[in-house]
């Protein structure tokens, strides 16, 4: 008996209904309870064999579009208990979700893959899934979760006989990078926890310096040097700007030998930060503009890095007082940040725009954004964005100078409370001079 008469019978009994005939025939259960009852009436073995059959049919039907149906394939092979086939599809589904900026969905797919693998065996797959999960959390600026994932990846990697040491170095590099990047985004207690993990990884990286001295240019070495540069100032007190500049120069030199524009951009960011720290603000701007030129070339493959290069160039302009020039870059970056759903970049760009408008006495534009700040504050925790004290402080000044002392005082007090919470009783001043 073919499928269609059976479907028609079910339809005539009112159990299912036709959803569409084109482009592909599709039916729906009339009620979820009918589907549940039908599913529950099958034996486990029968259910699993049906799930395998569906998965295999999907594989046959869409051999060139498996990424589009990867979530379905992962679901059916997982329901069939076939983790060997389900896990790669879950990973593929996560990659596809990431390509459309569906970060939460990517996390669900990767977590599902890890659940399927369990806690024993499959070390080579498990550590890489933990790393991938950490990468998504890092993109979301969820630093504490990201570091926890990287550390889990490291502990699984240690159980792997004959594991490639460069993988461990990369994981340590990501721990340090993530820890350094969220320094001012979390409160002091959270940061001291994060910084312990980052320091341990930083020590481990220091022991891996032979990789750096390998004269063969390698993209991972460029990233490692860039992160060591970042850690030299972000994770040290006082910052060691000379060491930061040395690592950054080495990263840029190596990146220039490679044909990898993304790593070149990463190295130039490290260099620009080190130049800032050394007080060479014009040179820092030149470096940021060079980075932006690379990131704007056709075919530049990393949209998030390109967005950061745009923000970075605008930020460097702000520091030398080129506010008018920075604004168009920031408005462009704002669109990109919205498109990629990057909460930290939305925050950064809006803060820089507020700074520019404040310096240019464009108070109406600052006032018009107040609702957007409140929305951002409600939607995301500080860890995902950054401390809102700076733009709140600028708004407080505008309100006070406009004659609304009450609103100004309220904003000022909120700004002050965030500063003290984030930077500490003694150290908030340098970054809160307004």
């Amino acid at each position, binding site marked *: 008996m073919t499928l269609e008469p059976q479907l028609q019978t079910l339809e005539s009994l009112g159990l299912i209904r036709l959803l569409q005939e084109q482009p592909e025939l599709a039916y729906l259960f009339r009620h979820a309870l009918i589907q549940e009852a039908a599913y529950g009436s099958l034996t486990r073995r029968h259910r699993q064999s049906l799930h395998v059959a569906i998965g295999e049919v999907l594989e046959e039907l869409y051999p060139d579009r498996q990424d589009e149906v990867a979530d379905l394939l992962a679901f059916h092979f997982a329901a069939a208990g076939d983790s060997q086939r389900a896990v790669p599809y879950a990973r593929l589904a996560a990659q596809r979700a990431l390509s459309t900026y569906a970060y939460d969905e990517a996390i669900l797919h990767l977590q599902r893959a890890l659940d399927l693998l369990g806690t024993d065996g499959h070390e080579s797959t498990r550590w890489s899934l933990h790393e991938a999960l950490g990468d998504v959390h890092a993109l979301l600026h969820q630093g504490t979760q990201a570091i926890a994932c990287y550390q889990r990846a490291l502990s699984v990697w240690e159980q792997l006989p004959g594991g490639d040491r460069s993988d461990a170095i990369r994981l340590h590099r990501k721990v340090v990078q993530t820890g350094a990047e969220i*320094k001012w985004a979390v409160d002091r207690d959270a940061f001291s926890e994060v910084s312990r993990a980052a320091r341990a990884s930083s020590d481990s990286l220091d022991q891996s310096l032979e990789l750096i001295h390998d004269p063969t240019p390698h993209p991972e070495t460029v990233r490692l040097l860039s992160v060591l540069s970042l850690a030299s100032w972000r994770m040290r007190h006082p910052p060691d700007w000379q060491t930061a500049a040395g690592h950054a120069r080495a990263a840029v030199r190596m990146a220039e030998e490679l044909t990898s524009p993304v790593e070149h951009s990463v190295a130039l960011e490290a260099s620009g930060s080190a130049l800032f720290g050394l007080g060479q603000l014009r040179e820092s701007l030149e470096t940021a503009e060079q980075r932006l030129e690379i990131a704007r070339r056709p075919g530049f493959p990393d949209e998030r890095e390109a967005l950061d290069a745009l923000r970075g160039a605008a*930020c460097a302009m*702000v520091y030398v007082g080129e506010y008018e020039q920075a604004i168009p870059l920031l408005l462009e970056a704002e669109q990109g940040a919205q498109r990629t759903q990057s909460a930290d970049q939305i925050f950064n760009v809006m803060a820089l725009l507020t700074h520019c408008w404040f310096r240019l*006495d464009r108070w109406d534009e600052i006032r018009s954004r107040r609702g957007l700040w409140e929305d951002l504050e409600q939607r995301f925790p500080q860890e995902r964005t950054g401390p809102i004290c700076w733009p709140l402080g600028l708004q407080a000044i505008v309100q006070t100078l406009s004659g609304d002392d009450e609103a100004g005082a309220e904003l000022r007090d909120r700004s002050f409370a965030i500063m003290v919470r984030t930077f500490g009783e003694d150290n908030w001043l340098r970054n809160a*001079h307004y």
Partner: protein
Amino acid sequence: MPRLAEGEFALVRSHLEQAIRTPTDPVRWGSGMTDLDFHILCAEAAAQARDADGLAEHAPLAEEGARRLGHRLYSGVAHRAHAVALLLGDQPGGAIDRYSQAVEVFATLGTRWQLGRSLAGRAEAHASTGNPASARADYARALEAFEAVGAAPAAAQVRQNLLSLP
């Protein structure tokens, strides 16, 4: 501009001086403080408090930093700080020159609040030289700038100053 009370200025200065001794980071949202920011802020605070010592210490450093970096906005602020110092030193002619340079910078940049403050300062200098007509013209322009940006308290102060002119 309402002046900072003596105690408040001392507190601001103490905070700023503590800040400059604390290492800074180039934070992504652009609020990291540079040495130039520090000297500009100290010069501004000293100008508002009419603190000749503070101006003597910070205004030259602010001006040098702004020149070296090509920071136009800060060069205007430094001109204004020097103008206040000259006014305090009983040199209204020099103060008017410095205020005029500040006015030129801020008019070019279109920064209305800064422009209004510099015009109001120049008006005060004109008044002190017994030139009420020039003072009146500058106050009128300052009022226009303050009203355009929505600086109600500063606009009210300028209106009061206009009324007190002979």
